[in-house]
C-alpha cells in the first residue's frame, strides 16, 4: 500500500515539498532556563473525550444527578468497581489512571478542566481540524500548529548542504496527524505491528445497514455473532491506535526516539475511539487505561530526559453533561486537557469552574468552556521551548492575538 511502516531506524519523511538540501539551518529547540533539553509531545485524542468522566467533579452538587448510572464516586472506606481516585477536594480521576494519579501527587501532572478550542459546533472532522490546524475555524488543512511552531523556533546552527540532517519533529502512526504536518521536515515512525483495524466501524455499519440494507444487515449481524467480524469491546488487543496495547507501543517507540541525543524533540501521536455515545464507562475504562499506560511509557523510556518533558493530551471538544439512554453521552463543549512530565508544575487542576446547574450549562446541555486550550499550549511553548508570544499569536495560532499564553505551567 502507499503507506510505509518503518522499522525503528530513523528514516526522514519530509513534511512538505522541497528536499533536505534546501535547509541551511535546522530549527533548534531553545534551551530554556537551567540548560534544559526539552521534549514536547502532543497526543491527539480523536472522538471527543468526556472530561466529566476522565476527571469527574465529584464535589459539584449537580454531578451525580446529571450522570446517574455513569457517575463516579470516591468512596471513603469501600472502593467499589467505579471508585474514582481522589485528586483534590473537588475533583477526582477515573480509576483507570493510577499512573497519572501517582504523577499528579508527585507534582508531575496537571489537569486543565472546562477548556475548549475556539470551535463551538459538534462535528468531529471540523473540531479536529480546528484542534490540529490551530486556526479559529475549520477548513485549514494544509498544516498544523505544531509544525508551524517548529518553524518559529529560533534558528540553530548552520547545516552543510548534503549533510544528514536530523529533523526535530516526529510523527507517530501510520499517517502523520495534521497537527504536525507542514513545511518543517518531520520524521515518521510507526510500530511494526500497528494494526489498522477500527473496532468501532462494525457498530456504525450496523446502524447504517439497519436502515438501508437488510441483506448486509443480516450478514453483519451473523458475522459479529459468530466472531468472524470483530467489533467494539470484543476486539482482542489488536494493537491499533484505539486500543491500549497500540497506544503503549506508540508511546514507547516515540519516547525511545525522543530520548536519543541527536533524536527528535517534538512529537505528535493520535489515539482514537473516544466517541462514547454508548456504554461509556466500559469503553473509557479501556481507553483511559491505554492513555495512562502511554503516559507511564513516556516516563519510563525517556529516563533522565523526563525531567525536561511535557506531554499534553488534547481532544476536539467534550460531551453532554447529562447521560443519555444508552449509558453514554453526546457531543458537547468543555472538556479536560492532561499535562504530564517532569517539567510540568503539577499537582494542580487549572479550572475556572463554570458549574453544572441547568442555567450554567452551555445551551442547557454542555459543560461550558472557560479556558481556551490555545492559552495552555502557548504557555507551554513559551516557558518550555522559548517560543515568541507574538509569533505564536500570528503564525502558530493565527487569529489568537488576544489569547494570552498561560504562564506558570512549567516547573
Amino acid at each position, binding site marked *: 500500500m502507499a503507506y510505509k511502516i518503518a522499522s525503528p531506524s530513523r528514516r526522514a519523511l519530509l513534511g512538505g515539498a522541497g528536499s533536505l538540501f534546501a535547509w541551511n539551518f535546522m530549527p533548534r529547540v531553545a534551551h530554556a532556563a537551567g540548560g534544559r533539553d526539552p521534549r514536547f509531545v502532543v497526543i491527539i485524542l480523536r472522538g471527543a473525550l468526556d472530561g466529566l468522566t476522565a476527571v469527574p467533579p465529584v464535589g459539584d452538587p449537580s454531578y451525580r444527578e446529571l450522570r446517574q448510572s455513569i457517575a463516579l464516586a470516591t468512596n471513603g472506606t469501600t472502593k467499589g468497581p467505579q471508585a474514582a481516585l481522589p485528586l483534590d477536594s473537588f475533583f477526582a480521576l477515573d480509576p483507570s489512571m493510577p499512573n497519572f494519579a501517582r504523577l499528579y501527587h508527585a507534582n508531575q501532572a496537571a489537569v486543565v478542566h472546562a477548556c475548549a478550542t475556539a470551535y463551538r459546533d459538534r462535528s468531529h*472532522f471540523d473540531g479536529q481540524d480546528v484542534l490540529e490546524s490551530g486556526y479559529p475555524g475549520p477548513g485549514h488543512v494544509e498544516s498544523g500548529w505544531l509544525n508551524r511552531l517548529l518553524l518559529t523556533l529560533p534558528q540553530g546552527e548552520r547545516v552543510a548542504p548534503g549533510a544528514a540532517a536530523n529533523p526535530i519533529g516526529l510523527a507517530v502512526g501510520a499517517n502523520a496527524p495534521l497537527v504536525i504536518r507542514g513545511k518543517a521536515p518531520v520524521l515518521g515512525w510507526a510500530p511494526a505491528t500497528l494494526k489498522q483495524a477500527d473496532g468501532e466501524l462494525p457498530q*456504525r455499519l450496523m446502524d447504517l445497514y439497519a436502515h*438501508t440494507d437488510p441483506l448486509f444487515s443480516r*450478514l453483519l449481524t451473523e458475522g459479529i455473532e459468530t466472531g468472524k467480524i470483530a467489533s467494539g469491546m470484543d476486539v482482542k488487543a489488536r494493537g491499533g491506535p484505539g486500543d491500549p496495547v497500540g497506544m503503549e507501543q506508540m508511546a514507547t517507540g516515540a519516547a525511545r526516539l525522543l530520548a536519543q541525543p541527536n533524536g527528535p524533540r517534538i512529537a505528535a501521536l493520535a489515539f482514537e475511539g473516544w466517541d462514547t455515545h454508548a456504554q461509556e464507562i466500559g469503553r473509557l475504562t479501556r481507553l483511559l487505561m491505554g492513555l495512562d499506560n502511554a503516559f507511564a511509557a513516556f516516563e519510563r523510556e525517556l529516563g533522565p530526559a523526563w525531567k525536561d518533558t511535557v506531554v499534553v493530551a488534547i481532544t476536539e471538544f467534550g460531551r453532554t453533561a447529562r447521560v443519555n439512554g444508552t449509558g453514554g453521552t453526546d457531543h458537547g463543549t468543555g472538556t479536560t486537557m492532561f499535562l504530564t512530565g517532569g517539567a510540568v508544575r503539577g499537582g494542580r487542576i487549572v479550572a475556572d469552574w463554570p458549574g453544572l446547574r441547568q442555567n450554567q450549562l452551555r445551551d442547557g446541555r454542555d459543560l461550558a468552556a472557560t479556558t481556551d486550550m490555545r492559552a495552555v499550549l502557548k504557555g507551554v511553548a513559551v516557558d518550555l521551548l522559548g517560543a515568541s508570544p507574538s509569533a505564536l499569536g500570528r503564525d502558530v495560532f493565527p487569529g489568537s492575538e488576544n489569547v494570552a499564553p498561560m504562564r506558570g505551567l512549567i516547573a
Partner: protein
Amino acid sequence: MRALAYHPATAHHIALKLARYFVADVPPPALVSAMADTFARTRGDLSAVYQTLLGSEDAWNPKLVKIRSPLEYMVALLRASGEHPKPNVIVGQLNAMGQPFWNPSGPNGFADTVDAWASSEGLGTRIDVANLIANATPGRADPRRFADETLGALQSPDTRHAISRAETQTQAVSLAFLSPEFQRR
C-alpha cells in the same frame, strides 16, 4: 455446432446470463424473453441483443440491485481512492474476498449472483480491505465532500448522516466504501 447455436435454449441461456449480469440476479422474465427473441431472430447478433437490453426500462432501473463482485469492488475502491497498491497486494486481497484474479475454480467462471459473494466472511474481508484503503487514501479531503463526489446522487441520507458523524476521517471514508451504494451497482 450450428444446430447448438441456433437452438432456442441457447438463445434463452445467453439472454439470461446477460440479463443476470447487468440487471438483477432474477431478471424480469419479459426482458429475458425479449433478448432471447432478438438473439434467435438475428441468428446470434449480440449487438442487437444489447440494443434490446439497453432499450428496455429494466436496464435503467435506478435501484441498486446487484452486489459488486470482489473484483468490481476492488476496482471501484482503487478508482475512488486513487491508491496504487502493489499488484501482489491486490491479488492477495482478491483471494481473501473469494475471487482469485482471472482464476475461477471451474470452467463455469465466477458466479454471478448474490449468494456467491454474500457471506459474512466476505463482508468481514471487505470491511478489512475498505479500512486498509481508507487508511491509505491520501490527503485531507473532507470525507463528506469525498462521499458526495464518489457516490454522487446515489448517496442515501442515512449514509451521509453516518459519514458526518464518524469519529475520524479514516472511519468516514471506510463508511463510504462500505455503504450499500458503494457495494452495489
